[in-house]
């Protein structure tokens, strides 16, 4: 596997938090969490017990739990990466279960090899790509992205992958193609959630072609310097960091160029709540809750949500002159 290390956005090294500061910040967070939680619960337990690393009581392969190498400890805004343990243990993946905490366990035996991705529709060079082809044909680079869930929590995650635009360039979309449609694998035997009603499985997502061609939109095959685990969308998933997490479809088997706006699974399930665009926007609330703030996993309290999840400079041009409230 050819690996080219690079962060998503070039940042001056002065903005990167030195490692000792980063660690002391994590320690402070743990201390603060211990303090307030014990105040709340009036728990008369020893305070140092809070230093027990999270997940230590869980079973699981030690090798699975250890992150691989990453080039930095923060995103370009100086915020620390989330622990590998958190990234692989707290997942929204309804095809396994709606319980975020149990997805990793349910996904343990999910078969991700062999795996093929069919790329077709309105393209000159349709093809079926083996997952290994995707890994070797396209340089894998590191991208540190914020992931903002529509449920108002977020993480900073070091992905490995390649720009979707490179794959699109290879299949050569016809001029009539306007959108890209993505589909997750449909396999109710392996994905018991797909037997549940209320959703039109398989999971479908879509992007406008210019969004899909934006350099920030990647197909990820790994995270924290290791191959993706099933709970994170193995073997290949989309990552569109300026949109709510549900746009970043997992375990993709089909990518299709089309000349219509695809209807995503969430648009179909609740059209008044989930739009096609789903750009992170603190000014446009979800019909049932505010999107003005978010909880960064690993932190206490809330932080203000950034427009386009902090990628406004890079992506605002895609939506120039559009009503973001209308196109939610």
């Amino acid at each position, binding site marked *: 596997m050819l690996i080219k290390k690079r962060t998503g956005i070039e940042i001056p090294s002065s903005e990167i938090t030195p490692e000792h500061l980063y660690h002391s910040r994590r320690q402070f967070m743990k201390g603060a969490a211990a303090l*307030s939680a014990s105040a709340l*619960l009036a728990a008369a337990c020893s305070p140092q017990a809070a230093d027990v690393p999270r997940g230590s*009581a*869980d079973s699981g392969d030690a090798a699975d739990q250890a992150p691989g190498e990453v080039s930095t400890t923060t995103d370009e805004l100086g915020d620390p990466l989330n*622990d590998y343990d958190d990234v692989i243990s707290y997942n929204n993946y309804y095809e396994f279960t709606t319980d975020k905490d149990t997805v990793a366990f349910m996904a343990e035996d999910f078969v991700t090899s062999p795996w093929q991705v069919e790329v077709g529709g309105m393209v000159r060079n349709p093809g079926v790509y083996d997952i290994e082809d995707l890994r070797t044909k396209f340089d894998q680079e590191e991208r540190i992205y914020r992931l903002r869930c529509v449920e108002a*929590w977020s993480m900073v995650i070091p992905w490995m992958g390649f720009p979707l635009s490179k794959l699109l360039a290879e299949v050569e979309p016809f001029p009539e193609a306007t959108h890209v449609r993505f589909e997750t694998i449909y396999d109710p035997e392996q994905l018991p959630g797909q037997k549940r009603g209320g959703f039109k499985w398989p999971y479908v997502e879509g992007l406008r072609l210019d969004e899909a061609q934006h350099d920030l939109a990647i197909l990820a095959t790994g995270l924290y310097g290791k191959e993706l685990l099933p709970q994170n969308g193995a073997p290949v998933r989309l990552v569109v960091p300026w949109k709510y997490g549900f746009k970043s479809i997992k375990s993709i088997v089909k990518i299709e160029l089309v000349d219509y706006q695809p209807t995503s699974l969430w648009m179909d399930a*609740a059209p008044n709540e989930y739009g096609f665009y789903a750009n992170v926007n603190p000014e446009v609330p979800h019909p*049932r809750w505010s999107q003005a703030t978010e909880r960064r996993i690993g932190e206490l*309290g*809330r932080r203000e949500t950034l427009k386009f999840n902090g990628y406004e400079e890079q992506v605002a041009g895609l939506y120039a002159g559009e009503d973001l409230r209308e196109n939610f």
Partner: protein
Amino acid sequence: MKLDRKTKANILRWTAHVVALLPLAIIIWRYYTGQLTADPIRDITLRTGWAAIVLLVASLACTPLNIVFGWKQVLPLRRPLGLYAFLYVSLHLLTFVYLDYGLVWGLIQEAIFDKRYALVGLAAFLILLPLALTSSKWSMRKLGKNWKRLHKWVYLAGVLAVVHYFWLVKNVYTQPIIFAVILGGLLLLRVSPVKQQVIRWRQAARKRLRVLTTS
């Protein structure tokens, strides 16, 4: 061994206390063993909320249990169960305003008015608050007839709690539906004609049973 009435009542009462405190014990234990998921605030919110709604429904179930089965022993459980429900509602609200929103009032205000489920949740808390404050025997005596009138509001709190649950889930409604059905059934049993009919059935059944055992 045959237990006398008083021992039975004591066992029931202590069981209720232990069961009602269990969710809190689990939260504390999971906190100190690092098992509150990657998002402990959310987990604490969900656990306290769930305990609150279960205990509130349990408290509302006592009277209907007496109507249907004639179990008078459960009637004294209404107060402790209701108070424990209020304890968890308070912890739930405290988690929201303190752990989650860090007591930043501007954000809290905005969150409550943007999240309609938060608004009904708050309404349920504001209803339960005076009920908890007037739960003592002394208040009962002091308020006389008005006490019953005041405490009827608990039904509305129960309904609001279920609505709160409905409005916060993301398209998977199994749990809120279960609570709605149970609560609906419990409320139905309190409607006078239904209640009278059920009591008649129970008494008739008991009479038949007595005839069978004596003949």
